[in-house]
């Protein structure tokens, strides 16, 4: 199994979620994060003093997926979240050693 972490632009969230739903991803966990990367925030002026807001709002998705569909998940995110503009985000894939569904105690792929 794989644990997929994707950082995307916030306004793409709904679209990505729907696209993932349509390829059979049943669950995911979402959080608001700030991203720091090549996409630079503007230098803002607040009360006459400059500051750089190089932390940009992003959304993080965490998706546990079986090995079979993991590649498809990555591809779907890549396609849906892509705006061809800098700052579109990244997808990281880690190995997932085990998964358990709390309600039933099931583990492994059926727990996803």
């Amino acid at each position: 199994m794989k644990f997929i972490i994707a950082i995307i632009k916030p306004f793409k969230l709904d679209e990505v979620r729907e696209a993932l739903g349509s390829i059979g991803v049943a669950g995911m966990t979402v959080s608001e994060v700030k991203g720091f990367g090549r996409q630079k925030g503007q230098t803002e002026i607040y009360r006459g003093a400059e500051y750089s807001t190089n932390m940009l709002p992003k959304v993080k998705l965490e998706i546990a997926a079986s090995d079979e569909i993991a590649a498809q998940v990555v591809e779907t995110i890549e396609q849906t979240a892509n705006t061809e503009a800098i700052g579109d985000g990244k997808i990281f894939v880690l190995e997932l050693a085990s998964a358990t569904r709390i309600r039933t105690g099931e583990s492994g792929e059926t727990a996803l």
Partner: protein
Amino acid sequence: MTRSVLKFAVLGLGAASIAQPAMAAVPAAEVVAPGTAYILNTLLFLIGGFLVMWMAAGFAMLEAGLVRAKNTSTQCLKNIGLYSIAGLMFWVCGYNIAYPGFAEDSLGLIGGFTGIYSMQDVGTADTETGYSVASDWFFQMVFCATTASIVSGTVAERVKIVPFFIFVTALTGLIYPVVVSWEWGGGYLDSVHGFSDFAGSTLVHSTGGWAALVGAIIIGSRAGRYGPDGKVNVFPGTNIPLATLGTFILWLGWFGFNGASQLAMGTVGDVSDVSKIFVNTNMAAAGGVVTAIILTQLLYKKADVTMALNGALAGLVSITAEPLAPSVGESIVVGAIGGAIVVFTVPLLDKLKIDDVVGAIPVHLFAGIWGTLVVAFTAAPDAGVTFMGQLVGVLLTAVWVSAASAVVWLALKYTIGVRPSEEDEVNGLDKAEIGVEAYPEFART
């Protein structure tokens, strides 16, 4: 100008309104019976008083919106506490110091320390004064509280609660009342220099501003605020709508602050003047807002909302020393220059590494000085206001308030200490001094 001084009232405005109906010259359409005038004068103090009391909430919201979230609960506590202390101290000794009834031949510098102020008895009216003394006391008291509110914004986020409250006690019980005694109490500035400060650009706002400035210097800046090579680290406010709300509250309260400083509405002339004050006050604030928006847009290509808020307040402070005499156009200009002062001096203070969290020094001190000096030009020609007289008032206030504030802040610094430990400051005063976060996370849990 003396102001609502009980002891002088028989000779002053109270007398005027009582005497009026007897004056053969008053046209029929303007006659107001003395009992009615008494009620209306009192009502002006009451309405003005509750509007200025409401400004305490305005300061609380403005400051709560501009400090970092980790210090927000503390800022709320400081604001409700200072308003309470100001009321108590003004009763314990403040009012009697402010209105000492200087002897005829006195220089009018040192007033009386005669202790607690006693209201008159229930059911009794004060027909000699032409208004209820309790209503006057209430109105004066909320001005005292305003002075303290100004300080809390500047020195936010790095002063412990207890020393802050001790400073407020000294400010409202002694420092502010002495300034008032010189002018509204009929003392030195009023009698010797013809100084004019209608509603307190100097007496209230600059006094608060000097106390804040001296405090900011003695206490130092917030940890990490100024980097090594002149770098200013920005700590953005955490709740802009609250800061906006606070500004609107202050704007509303200012109709009471300036309007009721007419001190009477028992004659058709007085109430007409109150009306003009409302208009001028509003328009000066509007001028300040528009100027701040245009300037930040031009200078920085963005409109800084916090500067617009400060601009409104600077406009209000600027017109406070003379909100009646100027034409509407002049009022707009006076306020607009106030707004410009803010836009230019906020970064200036940062250059000097004077850390003013909410911009109270530009708003209340710099715009207050501007507003006071310009009275020399906007006042009625026959009012006898001179630039030198105004300057003396500004300077005397500067000297006394700075010196007295420095003594108190330094005494606190070298005894119980003013600042929290660096660790407490980094973790936030809410954690160190209150124990309650303003906006706890996991609040949905």
